[in-house]
């Protein structure tokens, strides 16, 4: 099942070094890129069907085409490597194992959107990653792939690494821009959208590391080669991070469209012996949980996830077996989103803290049925009333546990903890 499109150089020793990476094809596509017009590249990426790998799945080429035409301001690229969604661990592989694929992708993207400055916003906790990435950028400058004449062409490009300080919310694209500008990482109200008014008030494209990392393959092999993988509406491959209670958790590159249970069974080694499946989080902690019944028919693509009222998300699959206490899972979940709320707007700032306290009260055995109902209602009251979707990430997922595993909450309310042991 596994394929190698993005991960071709992942297993090659020292592929983060430019000589090794070049021996295995890095930067080989640039001559072809610079022979093309920027608009042609955008059309090619549109044709490939590449969708944003940060979680929302917005078509990458279409996003680029939202940039205003004939503008006198500089255009910026911000590469989002704030990878902070719990259960997501894909971009870090690119950063460490094949940073030159990312840099090559950045060159392609910037040329296409006519940008001469790219920022890589990397989460503060990624200390090894930032060292490896910066070393690779330095190598790329020394080798002439970045700087005044990129790969010997009359094209200037500077790439700057900007380290975050560890805030989840800075993965939200406008909070990310605020953070790069040196302010507190709080999302901006939209509109205006970043493609019109982004970094330093200039048009800005924000793409995920994996989206950018997919570009060298698409440019080298063409849109059809990329579309050969995956489904019609969700083409290509994805780096899936499979974690939770499986025998072989890890990062696996797979084409989109595979049945989720088959992937768990065949790729991740299946559940531990004697255990039964209780649920699957399909794409990072914020995506609504799937019951085993729902998981039967889910395939790993955007459309199937939407049809099952959940989201493809970041490809961080978490497998939950019968030992998992869903109420405590929800506590953990809300704890995270509450802790990471930027505190800017009222519903998220005040609401998530209240939700956390209610769950804790239920776990202490002091809750009532009214508390479960209140929790459900608060999800509705908070969701989509906020500046950004951080609170929705919490409420959408929390609501799914409340709806699908309400009996576990009720067990706490009516008579102490349920039978399951904690994870």
């Amino acid at each position: 099942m596994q394929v190698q499109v993005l991960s071709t150089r992942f297993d090659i020793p020292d592929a983060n070094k430019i000589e090794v990476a070049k021996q295995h094809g890095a930067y080989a596509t640039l001559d072809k890129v610079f022979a093309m017009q920027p608009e042609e590249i955008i059309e090619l990426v549109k044709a490939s069907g590449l969708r944003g790998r940060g979680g929302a799945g917005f078509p990458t080429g279409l996003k680029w085409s939202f940039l205003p035409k004939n503008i006198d301001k500089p255009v910026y690229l911000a590469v989002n490597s704030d990878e902070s969604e719990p259960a997501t661990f894909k971009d870090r592989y690119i950063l460490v194992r094949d940073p030159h694929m990312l840099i090559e992708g950045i060159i392609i993207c910037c040329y296409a959107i006519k940008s001469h400055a790219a920022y890589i916003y990397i989460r503060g906790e990624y200390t090894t990653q930032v060292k490896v990435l910066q070393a690779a950028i330095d190598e790329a400058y020394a080798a002439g792939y970045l700087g005044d004449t990129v790969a010997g062409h009359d094209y200037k490009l500077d790439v700057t690494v900007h380290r975050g300080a560890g805030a989840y919310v800075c993965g939200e694209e406008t909070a990310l821009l605020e953070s790069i500008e040196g302010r507190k990482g709080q999302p901006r109200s939209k509109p205006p959208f970043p493609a019109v008014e982004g970094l330093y008030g200039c048009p800005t494209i924000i793409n995920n590391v994996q989206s950018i990392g997919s570009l060298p393959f698409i440019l080298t092999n063409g849109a059809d080669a990329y579309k050969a993988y995956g489904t019609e509406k969700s083409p290509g491959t994805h780096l899936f991070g499979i974690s939770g209670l499986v025998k072989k958790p890890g990062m696996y590159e797979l084409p989109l469209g595979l049945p989720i249970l088959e992937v768990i069974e065949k790729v991740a080694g299946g559940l531990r012996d004697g255990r039964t499946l209780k649920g699957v989080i399909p794409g990072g902690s914020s995506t609504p949980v799937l019951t085993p019944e729902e998981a039967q028919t889910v395939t790993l693509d955007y459309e199937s996830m939407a049809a099952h009222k959940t989201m493809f998300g970041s490809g961080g699959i978490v497998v939950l077996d019968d030992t998992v206490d869903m109420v405590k899972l929800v506590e953990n979940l809300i704890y995270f989103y509450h802790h990471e709320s930027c505190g800017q707007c009222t519903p998220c700032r005040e609401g998530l803290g209240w939700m956390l306290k209610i769950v804790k009260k239920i776990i202490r055995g002091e809750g009532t049925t009214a508390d479960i109902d209140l929790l459900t209602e608060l999800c509705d009251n908070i969701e989509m009333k906020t500046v950004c979707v951080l609170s929705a990430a919490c409420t959408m997922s929390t609501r799914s546990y409340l709806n699908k595993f309400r009996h576990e909450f009720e067990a706490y309310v009516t008579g102490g903890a349920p039978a399951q042991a904690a994870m």
Partner: protein
Amino acid sequence: MADKVKLFVNGQEVEVEAGKNLIDAIGAIGIEIPHLCYHPALGADGNCRMCLVGIEDGRPPLVPACKTRVAEGMKVQLDAEKIKKIQRDIMELELINHPIDCPICDQAGECKLQDYYMRYDGKPSRMTVKPVLKAKHMDFGCGVVHDQERCVLCARCVRFTRMITKTGELGIVNRTDYARVNIFPGRPLNNRYALNVVDLCPVGAMTSRDFRFKQRAWFLTNSPSICHGCSKGCNIFIDHNREKYKDDVIYRFRPRLNEKVNGYFICDQGRMTYKLENDNRLTTPRVGDRDAGFDEAVESVRRAVSQAQKTVVLVSPNASLEQMFAVQQFATAINAPLSGYSDGYIKQGDGDDFLIRDDKSANRASFALLGIDATKAGFAAAVGGADLLLSFDNDLSRSLSEAELGQLLATVKLVMVTSSQTECVAKAAVAVPVASYSEDSGSIVNGEGRLQRYEVAVVKNQPACDLLRIVHLLGGEVTNNQEARVGLQAAVAVLKNIDLEQVPAEGIALTESEVAHVAA
């Protein structure tokens, strides 16, 4: 006229001013959209989410009204159950960690949170877990006291120090429900407009150390007036109250919107001049070194004037246009030179590029209108050979050194008609109390040539006589403001076409264009 657009609010077609956001545009025709963080002087921030409204057929269907500009044909939903529920829900969330200490909170009665709860929520609390505890009564400097628990984190105060004073002393630290407004350690508020954050704060999180715990907001009468703290002429509310068995006392000044003068703000210095209206007032007339009745004091002044070889009349740069005119008429009638000498009222270099002016008097511009000399040389020439100096509320001790004043008073007898106990009063042969501007009405012209009107705000239990009346009792012709205004219109060319009885709320700029416009 501003451009108009037609749109629909709750299905009703309305016409509003174009180019504004929904809160201002629809607010101007009397339809309220609740909001905490938006302030017209500070722009839209969009953090409180209280102003979320529905836009029918819109994308997105739910928008913050503060960030949404009115557009032709827009269909705004305010009364939909969906919107009412959002307002209730936001209020509930604002209140879960709020101490709800309205009985001991100074803001009660003028609190947005309280008003909105009554108007948009009204539901009992569902909060059964412990609220977040934060710091209380923090000294932020400049007389500002902060209560973090009452704060709704609208960031108006933060934006004020960043956008208006550009001093940036305040910030919001921490995240989530631990977010709070704070100063940097050891770096308190340090600007001359800091107390505006108390007015800006929609709740009781920012209070004034000076005003705290003195009065409940609902007992205060809010009388419009003009600050006399400097020549800017900022529009204010005089908040005053007569407690049972006590006198009418001013508790605070607050800024009153006038886009043409001060916008939404006033300076702290001017704000504190309310104390001059309350304290250290001359209440009892004095003749020689003993208290006297009012009639007796006036009579002794009349006698002094009639007996004097040469009387010099001194008028204050704080006097109203009408008062100055009456004094000028009187001085002419008794053939006495008139001076407005008051250099001491000017604090050179104290002004700034916002609201504070060097000239700490309110109506110096009227000297020029009436041709009243205010130079030191003019004053020196006038007092040469004089034996009586009749001062109408002009405190000479501000303009002359003690030695100079002593030298002058060695040969000249001083009569003070004054509202407050200045240094000069002790040196005067006769002192007659007079109403101050908060107890009187009149017109003043600010340093930028804008004519403004103030009316009587405070009525004392024992009202001091107003200046026009005293001048009349001394023999002046003018008896009241109306007469003075008729006279002014005949005497002063630039006032000829102005209806001085009907000064608009924003005042009138005494320039060709605006005077012509008003006349037309």
